[in-house]
Structures are given as structure tokens and as C-alpha cells.
């Protein structure tokens, strides 16, 4: 899968240039969208790390994402004390993550005395307090309700991803300010470079989390999810493990937020700290597979693909521009009911309303595919290899 993602920008460019280019452009997400899939996918993974593996629904997880995004933007503007605007981006991400760890420890110490719905609610409460706070905090920018942007005066360059202080091992990310690369016969645009560099950070974070999940530590988390009392009876202290999982997950959520702040060069309270941001992570986790680490990334990919397919924007394709170009005008203008044309109907009921269809899909997943995309595939494979095979053999033996 990593290989497939590594080749994606080339495949996308090839397909768009091919005779079926417009179809490909309509169906496939743009590379720019994919960058968002990466960093938000990382956030969804970190959400899944604590919620899917310990069973404690962290409904205020957006606080860590927002912390990361705000930290990076403020640090780049020189508004974080003791931190120069020129601090390497990697170091900013690390510091943002550590700040989130501190916040997570404070919130977790109070919240993990509760469980079930109450846990979800108290974390939501903390996150909403933070959300309302940054929305009204005029230190952030003149108009805190709209968030803040990285100033081009203080921090004119893009954000470097790579090994700090070694120029040759760094590439800048960003839509406009990112580096471009010419290497042999390959040339990459700023967006494509961002795709690889953001993807690289996300991959490293994913591998780190993967390692933790498959360590004895991760096994204890699963034990807590399945039966907390028994885990305690066996001799583990659930509180410490839950708190540690929460802090680790907060760290990676802040890194994801920092990436989004660095790539977009701005932050807004409604797209970073609001409880619906956590909702989006939840959506991605459920569709992709709750309790599978890579699942949320696929969930987010699915979500974004549907959204872009039904988007209003003309660039990057979408259903409506495609139909406009390819259906004869008589079909588009045809009356359906009482003056409502086909084009009008698509405009009204499909375009920009991806939330409705994603919501329907989400509900169907909750009802009928509770394990999500990845979880179900794993179940199928596990079933065929581990369970079905002995059954088949048994049947033959009886004959």
C-alpha cells in the first residue's frame, strides 16, 4: 500500500494526461487533496489509537489537533515565547507534540477517573473550553474567530520537512511556497513535494504507533478494552496505561495538527478545535475500521474522495463539471418536475452536499459493517486462512 501511495502522483498525472483524463480527474482525488488525507488521516489514527484500542471515546480529541496547528502557526509568527520564527519545522512539530502530551496528561488525570459516556463528555467539555478560548483570544490574531495565518514578513519561507539544520536534507512544503524538485527525468511540483514530505512524516508516525500497538504495551490496551477489571486483576494498573495511551495519542494528534498548520500556513478554530473535527476523525475511523491503526487513513481517503467528487469547485474534477461537459445541453436543460432541470437537480441535491451521503454511508457502516473497510477485509482473510482451512480439511477427512 505504501508503494501504491508512493506512485500515486505519477499515476494521477499519467491518467489525467491519458485519453480517459477527464474521467480520471472526476473520480480520483487531486494530489493536493491527498496531502490533506495524509495529515488528517494521521489525526484520525491517533484518535483511533486511544479510542479504538482502549475503548475510551476521546470526544475532545480536536484539542490536541488544534494545539499542534496553533502552536506551529504562532511559533512561525514569533508569538511563542523563547522560540524564534526560524526554528526548524521538525523541532516545532516535536515541541507541539510535547505540549500536547502535557495537556493530555493534565486532562487525562482528571478524565480517566470516569468511563463510558462520562469520559466522552468530560473530554468534550475540555476541548470546547479550549475552542471557545482560542476563538476569543486576541493574542492569536486581530480576528481570532477566523484564526490566524503565518505572516509572510516574519516567516517568508515554507516549512522544512527533513533533518533540521542540514539544508540538503530538507524540502519545503506548502501549496505555493513549497520546493520543487528536478531530478533526472522526474520533476515534482510544490504540491507533489509536499505530498511526499507530509506522507513521509505520517509514515514515520504510523510506524511508531504500529510498533507501540504490537508491543506488550499495546496488548495491555486491548486487554483494557476487552475487560478492564480482569486486566486489573491480572496485575496491570489500567489508569497508567490509559493515561500513557492518551498522551501518546495526543502527541501524534498534535503532529498532525502541526502538519496541517504548516501545509496550509493558517489555522482556524472551526477547522481545528471544534468538536466536529473530532467527529470527522470518528467518521474516518468507523468507515476505515475502528481498532485497526491504518484503517482511519483509508476512511479519510474514502471520505475526501466522495467530498471532492461532489464538490462545487470546477478544478480537480467533480461530478457536475464532468456532466456539464459531456452530456448534451438538451439533457441538462430537460425538465424533471415543475421547472426543475436535470442540471438544477444535481446542483441542488448532490453538489456540495457530500455530508449527507457520507452520513448515510456512515450510518450504514455502523449498522452493517461495524468493523469498517480494513477490519472487514482482515476478518475475511483471517476467516479464509485461519478458520476455513481446518474446516475444509475436516470435511475431507470425514469423507
Amino acid at each position, binding site marked *: 500500500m505504501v508503494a501504491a501511495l508512493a506512485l500515486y502522483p505519477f499515476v494521477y498525472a499519467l491518467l489525467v494526461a491519458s485519453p480517459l483524463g477527464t474521467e480520471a480527474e472526476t473520480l480520483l482525488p487531486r494530489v493536493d487533496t491527498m496531502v490533506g488525507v495524509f495529515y488528517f488521516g494521521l489525526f484520525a489514527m491517533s484518535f483511533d489509537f486511544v479510542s479504538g484500542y482502549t475503548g475510551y471515546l476521546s470526544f475532545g480529541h480536536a484539542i490536541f489537533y488544534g494545539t499542534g496547528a496553533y502552536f506551529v502557526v504562532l511559533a512561525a509568527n514569533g508569538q511563542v515565547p523563547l522560540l524564534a520564527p526560524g526554528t526548524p519545522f521538525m523541532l516545532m512539530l516535536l515541541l507541539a507534540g510535547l505540549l500536547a502530551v502535557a495537556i493530555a496528561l493534565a486532562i487525562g488525570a482528571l478524565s480517566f*477517573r470516569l468511563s463510558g*459516556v462520562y469520559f466522552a*463528555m468530560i473530554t468534550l467539555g475540555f476541548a470546547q473550553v479550549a475552542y471557545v478560548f482560542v476563538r476569543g483570544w486576541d493574542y492569536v490574531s486581530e480576528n481570532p474567530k477566523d484564526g490566524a495565518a503565518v505572516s509572510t514578513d516574519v516567516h517568508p519561507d515554507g516549512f522544512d520537512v527533513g533533518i533540521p539544520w542540514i539544508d540538503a536534507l530538507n524540502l519545503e512544503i506548502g501549496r505555493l511556497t513549497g520546493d520543487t524538485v528536478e531530478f533526472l527525468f522526474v520533476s515534482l511540483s510544490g504540491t507533489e513535494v509536499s505530498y511526499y514530505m507530509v506522507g513521509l512524516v505520517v509514515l514515520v508516525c504510523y510506524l511508531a504507533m504500529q510498533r507501540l500497538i504490537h508491543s506488550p504495551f499495546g496488548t495491555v490496551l486491548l486487554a483494557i478494552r476487552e475487560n478492564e477489571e480482569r486486566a486489573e486483576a491480572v496485575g496491570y494498573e489500567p489508569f497508567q496505561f490509559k493515561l500513557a495511551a492518551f498522551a501518546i495519542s495526543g502527541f501524534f494528534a498534535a503532529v498532525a495538527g502541526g502538519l496541517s498548520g504548516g501545509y496550509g500556513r493558517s489555522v482556524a478554530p472551526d477547522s481545528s478545535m471544534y468538536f466536529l473535527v473530532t467527529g470527522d476523525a470518528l467518521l474516518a475511523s468507523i468507515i476505515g475500521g475502528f481498532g485497526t491503526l491504518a484503517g482511519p487513513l483509508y476512511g479519510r481517503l474514502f471520505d475526501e474522495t466522495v467530498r471532492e467528487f461532489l464538490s462545487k469547485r470546477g478544478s480537480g474534477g467533480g461530478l457536475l463539471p464532468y456532466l456539464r461537459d459531456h452530456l448534451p445541453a438538451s439533457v441538462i436543460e430537460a425538465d424533471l418536475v415543475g421547472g426543475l432541470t436535470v442540471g438544477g437537480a444535481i446542483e441542488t441535491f448532490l453538489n456540495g452536499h457530500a455530508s449527507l451521503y457520507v452520513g448515510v454511508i456512515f*450510518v450504514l457502516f455502523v449498522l452493517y459493517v*461495524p468493523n469498517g473497510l480494513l477490519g472487514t477485509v482482515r476478518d475475511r482473510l483471517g476467516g479464509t486462512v485461519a478458520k476455513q482451512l481446518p474446516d475444509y480439511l475436516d470435511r475431507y477427512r470425514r469423507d
Partner: protein
Amino acid sequence: MTGTVLAPLFVDALGEFFRPGTLSEVLLNGLSKAALYAMIASGLTLVFGLLGVLNFAHGSFTMLGAYLGGLVMVVLVGSATGDLARVLFFLVGTLVVFAAIGALGGAVEVGLIRQLYDRPPIYQILLTFGLALVLDEGARIVVAFYGLQPITDWRDALGTKPGFMAENLEVAGLTVAPLALFQIVFGVVTIGAVWLFLTRTRYGMVVRAGSEDDEMTAALGIDVNRVFTTVFALGSAVAGVAGMLLMWDPVWGASLPLAHETLLPAFVVVIVGGLGTFRGTVVAAGLVGLVDATMTWWFQNAITFTGLPEMMIFLVLVLTLIVRPQGLFGVEEVGGH
């Protein structure tokens, strides 16, 4: 910035706050908010107590109620309609909203939520969350289709308010907003009706028995599933009616964000009061409503920090959960402690 500048300002504001005129205004405001929160949250707490489902789509029912109520009013009321007729039409609209949102709620319970009772509670949160997305986006499509602004308040519906509710009354030197009075009266009547239903009717007894122990209730020969449906429908219907009240209120108005604006305070009220206790919810609604109104006043007059009231509401939630995790009137075992 410094203390010397702030302190006299603060003392001034304190003196201003304790004037009878200000106090009565804040109190009235707080009670009207409390009445609305109690209406919205009571459905939430009943549903949780009986079904064990924390309904994220509850705010969407309120939002739908606001739009539906607005629609009824816009259709019925013309510019020539008198004030009394408008109030009467409002009552008619209330019945329509109650029936329609109740039916919707019942359908949701039978069609969707019923399938999830034997799964972990997290799935019900997820399902209702998805349902809220669908309802909100569906409403957005319809609203946009008729050329209304989805984000700002629905003007036409606001315009159907009787004239005497639009202006403040001066009674014995105190400023009284008739709309707030109307909301308080309406809320008290609704909450009273639900309370009477729960404590004085046979069906209410069944509902309370079901909250206590649904298996035992079923063993006594009662069709618990039907009780579930009824309670879910009732809770949704009351939330819808609360939305209808909000439609006339210029502070809220019928708009799509209403779903979240009401859902979050309602959650706070339910948790602070203790999940599943009706009495706790009513008391907590009073508490949260008064805190909200007080902080709104301070924010408008003394402290320049936007969003202060909202922040206080969530601080109340967090503090309650730290000090008394089961809520004011909650029972330890409820909600997975």
C-alpha cells in the same frame, strides 16, 4: 491591562450588576434559557435513562422543529393577523411540530436504533452522530432549495411574532421581555406536563420501571420495545417544540447551526444533572441557564472576552464531573461508571 485600571471598572460593574433592574433582567433571561434547556435536555435524559442511548441527533430534532414551526407560522400568519390569533396559531403549530417530530423520532427508533441495543453503547453514539449529519445536511438542501439563508436566522419566521412580544415592557421600573416570560410559561407547562405524565400516569410508571430495570419490566408482561419507541418519540417531540419556541427568539432563530447550539448545552445540562434523572436535569437546566445569563451580562458589560458564556457552561460541566462525577442527582451505576 493592569490591575489598577481593571479594579475600579470591576467594582463599578459589580455595583451595576446588583441593581434590582439588572438582577431581574438577568434572572428573567436565565430562567427563559433554563426553560428551553430543560425542554431540550429532558428528552435527552429520558431517552438515556430508558434506552441507554446518548442521542447526538437530538439537537437536529430541535432544529427541524424550529423550521417546521416557522413554516406553519409563515403559511398561517399574514400581515393582518392579530396578536391573539398569532398566539393561537402558535399553539396549532406546536401541535403540528409535536406530532411530526414525534413521528420522526419514533421512526428513527424503530428503524435504526432498535438494531443496536445489544451492541456496546459506543455504537449508538456513532449511529446518532451519523444521523445528525444526515438530518442537518438534508435540512440544508431543503432550506437552500427554497432560497433561504441556511446560516442566518429565518427572517420571515421571526416576523410572525406578535407585536407585543417584540418590545420590552416597563413594569415598576424593571424591564421585562414578554418573549422571555412566554418562554418560561411555555417551558414550565411542558416540563410540568412531562413530570405529571411520568409520576401520575400508569404509562409513566411503566417508563420509570423500564429505566430502573427493563428486563424485569419485560418479565412482568410489558412490551418494553413499545415503551422505548414512545419515550424516544416523546423526547424528540418535546425537543422539536422547544425549537419552535426558539424560532421566535432573535438570539437563536431558525437556522441550521441551531442543531449544535442547542445540542451542546443540552449535553451539559444532562451530564451536570446526572444522566437519566429527570429531576436532576430540571435543576441543572436552572443552574446552567442562570450561569449562562449571568455570564452573558458580564461579557456584555464588564469583561471583553467573546464566548465567555459558552466557556462558563463547559467549565460547569468539567467542574461537575471532577467534583461529583455522577452529576447532581445521578446514581453511581448509570452511564458506565
